[in-house]
């Protein structure tokens, strides 16, 4: 259907208002919300992901597309029923206590939303206890922690430890990232995954949720 192709293409260009308009127009002519989602928005985002992997477009382009995706989803989500309306999972994210850098964490949050996850963003300078409390309260499947300072990285270990003490290990999975954070560090502290950049973090979260 032409209008669904237009939605996908507009999404690829990061035209958030246009995507919302087209989604409304598609619904007005009888296209089902599920079709708009699957054959317009998700198809468009999948193409964006593929072009990103081929280095034809770059992270700022993906961020614009993710914003357009969110604009489209907001149009159709209230009309979706049952399984289709359900998010892929809930992820609690934040920058670890003592650190105020939040760009990387913000990028991960935007891209997780674009990928269909519900995101609870606790902001920056987040105490370990707050990660755990939010995960319990929101029924999150994943906690994502970011750090740009080596001095704050031990806070990530505290979150992993606290989740274990509360019997949540294995139920709430953990992913860590940030410039000084390595896969080796993730293993050392018992985190379930390490994301080396925002796109990789989304892939790893998807794997974690699939594994829960």
């Amino acid at each position, binding site marked *: 259907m032409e209008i669904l192709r237009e939605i996908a293409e507009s999404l690829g*260009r*990061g035209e958030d208002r246009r995507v919302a308009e087209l989604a409304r127009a598609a619904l007005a002519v009888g296209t089902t919300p599920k079709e708009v989602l699957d054959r317009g928005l998700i198809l468009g985002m999948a193409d964006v992901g593929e072009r990103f992997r081929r*280095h034809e*477009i*770059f*992270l*700022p*382009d993906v*961020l*614009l597309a*993710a*914003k357009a995706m969110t604009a489209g989803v907001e149009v159709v989500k209230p009309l979706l029923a049952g399984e289709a309306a359900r998010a892929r999972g809930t992820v609690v994210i934040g920058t670890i206590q*003592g*650190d*105020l*850098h*939040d*760009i990387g964490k*913000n*990028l991960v949050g*935007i891209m997780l939303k674009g990928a269909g996850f519900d995101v609870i963003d606790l902001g920056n300078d987040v105490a370990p206890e707050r990660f755990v409390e939010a995960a319990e309260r929101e029924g999150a499947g994943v906690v994502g922690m970011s750090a740009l*300072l*080596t*001095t*704050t990285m031990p806070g990530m270990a505290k979150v992993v430890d606290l989740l274990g003490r509360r019997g949540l290990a294995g139920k709430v999975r953990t992913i860590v990232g940030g410039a000084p954070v*390595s896969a080796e560090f993730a293993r050392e502290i018992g985190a379930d995954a390490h994301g080396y*950049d925002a796109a990789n973090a989304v892939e790893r979260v998807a794997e974690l949720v699939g594994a829960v």
Partner: protein
Amino acid sequence: MRAVLRLDLAEAEPDPRAVLERLGIGRDREPTATVSGLLSKAVDLLRRHAQPAGVVEQIARQEFEAVYAGEGKNLSPAPLDAVLPRADRLALFAATLGEDVSLEIAALFGTDDFALGYVLDAAASSAAEGLSRILARRYLSALIARGEVPADRRALDYSPGYCGWDLTGQRRLFARLVPGEAGIVLNESCLMRPLKSVSGVIAVGPEGIHRLEPVYACCATCGERSCRDRAAAAVAPGEDWEDEHGNPSGDRGEPRKG
């Protein structure tokens, strides 16, 4: 010798290619038209919001070694171990783009303008790094103008968190430099505020002292390879803070005797 300097962003305006690299767009790739447009907007915003300032204070080698020792967590051997014995002069420094840039980045993310916020963040980080080069050039020029070092000397900045100098070294550096005059403070995690700030030591000496082979353990995990080639030459006499003691261009800084 100490100076508190208000700096001109025009000197520190980021190299577009350096910003693109921060965005993951290598020199062998061309940005999309969208990214180029965002970069242009980001640089405009940077010009509007940056209020660059810096502090430089000369320090004797022995005293610097106590600062550098920090909390005993430095890598050993580290590049500075080789640089320090051959340096003619050392100066602690801190510089910032000011708080407004960070507020603008946060505002862009707060209004869902993620892409522009992200590009502005990268441009600001690149510009902040440029501030250390400016201070290095100014300091070197001042030394040459005073006849303290020969004109063929080069200056290079080294910072805690890099080159094996543990981030906790910031604590002693800030205790000694006290860069509050430039509006820069340190929190318990060794994080500088405003966020777009840089600090460290400027080492002045023969060009060769900065040409270190990347043989240190820290080099294995560091992607920066231009460090060996970016030692700053002096600026022309008259562009450093030294001339401000008596000339009318006093708005470049407020030098005071250390």
